[in-house]
């Protein structure tokens, strides 16, 4: 059996590991754009913040490929898949015995996502960054010295983490966001306002609604011109306007693509023998009950692992993905999961409890008797319990009020 995996992010790595557990002899080739030892992408913001050195990003040993007997083809991009000939083609001219195409019996597309590009003049100036990989952060670190003012575009997870990191570095940070509070895709308004309050208390400036039209500077960015006519001084700009699945090389006439690559319960695409996992894949969201791309680390891990098993012949069904996140910001902990702003529909019930003095907030969203969403601000230790109830769609028999209390615990779900 010949396996080819495109992408050496966590989904690709997990898939390779689970293939090896089942099939010790099959050939595995991983083609990846990045040449670093497998590393933890979400942790790059900790490097920006100065909390950890780059060496701590690695989550596998330098001998990872060798140990699992994997052929690594790193620093190369896949440009094309020839579905009929069962081949993957990379952007390299074949020379000296090196080939530019790889045959497969089973193929995994685990190419993740790319930062969503923005349109503005002067984007080619220095010190304007996207933040997706280790290389981006290494470049940022080099341009931090002497800078005082930072501009962050977007209040999503990445924009938010960039802003937090730069604040910790002592930058005066301005964040441009669309909705009135950051993380609006993850959190509801009440929770978002608590997060905003904490950030503002530590000096973050937030501008709502404005967008950048143009950047100016002399080689390096100095000023940003906004749609509302104002001008902002900035020594560094980070663009965090979300991500888009990285799938430009996928033949859409042969592999079904929606926002992401559509997969079935075995992580297989519409084209037999081709699988997809991670930020690039789209499957049903457990809480939303609709096809969804949940571009988050724990799902990339799950999907990669299950895709690998299925590729190696062990049929394992994937139940569906679930959006979720946990973040610690200064002294506030936030956990969110599933549907946090339910549609206006009598099938949904929302209960919540807020104590602004203790910075405690908890909101639970039910659809009939099943928990489908939660927002927790502080007292998050037991959050996994609630998340697992959402994941397993367990009908809830106890009162919602009990689950809102900070001391809610596992015992309260037990019958005896």
């Amino acid at each position, binding site marked *: 059996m010949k396996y080819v995996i495109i992408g050496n992010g966590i989904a690709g790595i997990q898939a390779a590991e689970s293939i090896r557990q089942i099939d010790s002899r099959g050939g595995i080739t991983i083609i990846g754009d990045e040449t670093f030892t497998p590393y*933890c992408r*979400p*942790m790059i913001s*900790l490097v920006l913040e100065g*909390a*950890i050195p780059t060496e*701590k990003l690695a*989550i*596998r040993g330098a001998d990872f490929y060798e140990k699992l007997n994997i052929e690594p083809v790193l620093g190369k991009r896949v440009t094309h898949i020839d579905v009929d000939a069962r081949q993957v083609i990379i952007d390299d001219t074949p020379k000296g015995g090196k080939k530019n195409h790889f045959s497969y019996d089973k193929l995994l597309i685990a190419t993740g996502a790319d930062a969503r590009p923005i349109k503005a003049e002067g984007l080619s100036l220095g010190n304007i960054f996207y933040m997706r990989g280790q290389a981006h952060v290494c470049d940022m670190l080099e341009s931090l010295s002497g800078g005082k003012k930072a501009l962050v575009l977007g209040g999503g997870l990445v924009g938010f983490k960039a802003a937090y990191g730069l604040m910790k570095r002592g930058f005066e940070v301005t964040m441009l966001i669309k909705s009135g509070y950051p993380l609006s895709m993850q959190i509801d308004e009440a929770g978002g306002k608590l997060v905003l309050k904490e950030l503002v208390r530590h000096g973050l400036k937030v501008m709502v609604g404005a967008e950048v039209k143009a950047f100016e500077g002399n080689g390096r960015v100095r000023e940003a011109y906004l749609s509302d006519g104002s001008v902002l001084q900035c020594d560094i700009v980070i663009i965090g306007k979300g991500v888009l699945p990285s799938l430009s090389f996928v033949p859409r006439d042969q592999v079904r693509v929606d926002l992401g690559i559509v997969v079935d319960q075995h992580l297989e695409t519409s084209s037999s023998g081709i699988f997809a996992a991670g930020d690039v894949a789209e499957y049903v969201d457990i809480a939303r009950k609709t096809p969804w791309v949940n571009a988050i*680390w*724990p799902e990339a*891990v*799950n999907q990669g*692992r299950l895709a690998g098993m299925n590729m190696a012949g062990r049929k394992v069904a994937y139940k569906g993905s679930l959006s*979720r*996140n*946990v973040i*610690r910001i200064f002294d506030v*902990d936030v*956990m969110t*999961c599933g549907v946090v702003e339910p549609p206006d529909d009598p099938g949904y019930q929302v209960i919540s*409890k807020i*104590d602004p003095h*203790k910075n*405690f907030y908890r909101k639970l969203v039910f659809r009939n008797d099943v928990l489908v969403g939660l927002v927790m601000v502080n007292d*998050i*230790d*037991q*959050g*996994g*319990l609630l*998340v*697992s109830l959402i994941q397993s769609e367990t009908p809830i028999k*106890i009162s919602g009020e*009990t689950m809102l*209390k*900070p*001391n809610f*615990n*596992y*015992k*309260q779900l*037990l019958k*005896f």
Partner: protein
Amino acid sequence: MKKVVVHPERCVGCMQCMVACATAHSRSGNLFSAICEVPLPKPRVHVGVGLYGEGFPNRCRHCDPAPCMLACLPGAIYRNAEFETVMIDSDKCINCASCAMACPFGVIRYHEDMHAPPKQVVAVKCDNCIDRQAKGLVPACVEACKSSALTFETTSDALKRKTNEVARSVSIETGKIVVAPGFNLLNAAKKAQINLKAM
């Protein structure tokens, strides 16, 4: 392989397992000196209170595959094969709480610990007392439990005993145990603590 088995129906909520656990994970290993240590040793088993005030010693199930291990960002959670135990490497832990979001039992806590770098908050949970086990001792929570709500035995022994108990219960008429008035299953201190925490 012996494991800690939890019998929730026997727990009287005395929380002695918590004290024993904290002591076993202290620098001195002695209760009276442990309470003066910095950081203050904390338990890894947690007696949660049920809907009717009954206790339940909640501890790590050392799942396989372990959701916390899969979710851990820095790869700090690993399995000790010899003791079938899920462990956290506190030097690698970044206190991101990804494991809190993954654990379906809510057994992970975040605080300073004598094994972690000084002044650093890390994820802490049950390690099956593998240091004690290596010395031939049973886990501290089991040793402390007076009501046999925590036992240390092989899974097959535990299953056999349970089967016998079920068999006995069908042949003997077992009614509800009448509890003397004033007898309360939940320890008073725990009650006070709950009342304080419940807002």
